[in-house]
């Protein structure tokens, strides 16, 4: 094959394209999508690159179909992905739920834009955080990563695929318009250095295999369509055989496993980048593009002698409650910087449990947070002004 799957080397590309390259490096060979600003470039890159390396790009009739198609392809044994923005993300909710209930590995990239509704299609926001967590109906757990640069779009997409294959669920990339459309240096390592995780295969014969009987860590080995296991996969609540089980006992058993496989492994899933936490009095918590504004503000504060610190959430879901609880105990104030009316701040307050006051620095979308805005909030907090 002339074209390479992993374009080792240094590139100057935007976040959307970096997401595509990351997916291909992770082994993604199927993309079903629908054009939507600001995520279209992911689809365009995929439509160019996938045929070169033996994959398939298909533009479906809508985002509902795109999400259904990547679930189907995943059950066909091919790593698959879609990308969209707010409006399409809303349409994908039901089938994301199907992916969670049937434990289907795949990746959904949401390059967020300002909402509600059509909103500001070409301008940044981070208003889909709670939708990513609770958008589908019913109770479930989700994994969501929030890249802050094209380089992280590349790295986090690989991690998203590995997490989805290991924990067997759709993993969401919560990027935003600025990251998606920003062009920066992206370093692609040699193929051998990229760690790839593939789904766990059944080790027993067809007669003994139960598609939804989990190993001790709560994760069930996955037989693909055509492997000869004659599996039944349904969105109905099901037992270990995968057969519909229409009672509260089966529901308790199934949903407990779907939730625990994420919650019990959250230490392995959660990852944050922390700055100056050891002596910080005012700690800014942020993610995505807002984490870069916060980084600037924290460094400016340090120059002014203010003991500021930063927690950058690489994984936004599951939320790092334990870390926040510990830091809140030793902080004067914690500040959430995000581009929405206050969503992750609710999680921050919940995790802080009143151990310290929590502030929000935000706007409703359309522009990134000015570091000065965050800096003034840090300064005010440092002076103990409420």
């Amino acid at each position: 094959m002339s074209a390479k799957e992993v374009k080792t080397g240094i590139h100057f590309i935007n976040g959307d394209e970096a997401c595509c390259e990351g997916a291909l490096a992770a082994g993604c060979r199927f993309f079903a999508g629908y054009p939507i600003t600001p995520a279209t470039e992911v689809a365009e890159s995929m439509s160019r690159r996938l045929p070169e390396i033996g994959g398939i790009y298909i533009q479906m009739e809508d985002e509902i179909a795109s999400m259904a198609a990547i679930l189907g392809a995943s059950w066909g044994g091919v790593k698959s992905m879609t990308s969209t923005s707010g409006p399409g993300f809303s349409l994908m909710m039901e089938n994301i739920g199907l992916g969670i209930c049937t434990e289907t590995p795949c990746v959904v990239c949401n390059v967020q834009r300002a909402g509600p509704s059509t909103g500001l299609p070409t301008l940044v926001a981070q208003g889909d955080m709670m939708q990513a967590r609770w958008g589908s109906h019913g109770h479930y757990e989700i994994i969501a990563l929030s890249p802050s640069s094209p380089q992280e779009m590349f790295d986090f997409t690989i991690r998203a695929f590995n997490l989805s294959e290991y924990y067997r669920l759709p993993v969401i990339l919560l990027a935003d318009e600025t990251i998606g459309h920003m062009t920066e240096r992206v370093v692609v390592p040699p193929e051998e250095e990229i760690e790839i995780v593939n789904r766990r295969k059944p080790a027993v014969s067809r007669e003994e295999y139960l598609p939804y009987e989990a190993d001790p860590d709560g994760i069930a080995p996955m037989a693909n369509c055509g492997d000869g296991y004659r599996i039944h996969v349904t969105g109905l609540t099901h037992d270990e055989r995968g057969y519909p089980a229409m009672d509260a006992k089966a529901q308790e058993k199934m949903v407990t496993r779907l939730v625990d496989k994420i919650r019990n492994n959250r230490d392995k899933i959660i990852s944050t980048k922390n700055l100056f936490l050891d002596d910080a009095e005012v700690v800014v918590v942020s993610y995505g593009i807002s984490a870069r504004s916060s980084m600037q503000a924290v460094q400016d504060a340090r120059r002014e002698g203010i003991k500021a610190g930063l927690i950058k959430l690489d994984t936004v879901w599951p939320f790092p409650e334990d870390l926040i609880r510990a830091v809140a105990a030793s902080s004067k104030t914690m500040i959430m910087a995000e581009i929405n009316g206050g969503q992750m701040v609710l999680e921050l307050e919940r995790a802080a449990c009143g151990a310290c006051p929590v502030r929000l620095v935000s706007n409703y979308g359309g522009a990134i947070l000015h570091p000065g805005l965050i800096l003034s909030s840090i300064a005010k907090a440092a002076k103990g002004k409420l």
Partner: protein
Amino acid sequence: MITAKTAKNLPPHPMDSLLRTERIPHIWCPGCGIGTVFSAVIHSVKNSGWDPNNIAMVSGIGCTGRMAGYIRLDSFHTTHGRALPFATGLKLAKPDTKIIVVSGDGDLFAIGGNHFIHAARRNMDLTVICVNNLNYGMTGGQQGPSTPLGAKTTTTVNGSPEEPFNFCYLAAACGATYVARWTAMQVRSLRSSISEALDKRGFSFVEVITPCPSSFGRRNRMGTALEMLKFYHGRSVIRSDIDPRDASMDIDREIVVGKFVDIERPTFMDHYEKVNRLNSPQWRAMHPDQKAR
């Protein structure tokens, strides 16, 4: 008389090999025609010459959707209306797997209508079986896209104010390469149509007019399931190879049955490979586990 209890070394029921017998008897109502269609599907699968490990069934939500749970194949019971896009993804990932999509009139043509017309337009290599019982059975008998004008349902107590689709005409218009319609009673013709549809490359569509005694039949005073079976059969007129536009589906006058479309047309995969100028061996090596890494 031989009954299962008294029989000694009798062969099992011929369909049992592809039935998840641990889940039989199934949930469908007494006299519902879905079981008959299901039996025809199993027969066609058994005689298709395809290795059952290489056949998958995808179904949507509704009474017919439950069929995936009873067939001993790789089967996927997806969300309402989304069987076809799911099957599209599955087919593109497993080009050599034969995929059968089974669902009802509401699932395929109301909520799933957009996906149906596009899957047919693309000529995805799928076999679609529509069990048309003229209403939404699972939810208790509401009006659907196939409910006849004036028919009583729980949501049209004064009679349906809408004229239904002609599914075969719609499928043909969207580009399906094989279109046929039978009533549930004409099981032998149905079996041959399903077998032909399975062998057909591209988007094949078979519609079966099926009695729904509990909901549609009861509310429209159509008598027992048996009487409904005979009624639909009585109304049916076999006219194969006519223009699907004229294959009218009107239970008050005549239900035109037969095979209406049987043409050849390149599938999505044919175009995809040609357009991307890929030679298929290299293109086929797309599965992660087949690759060295």
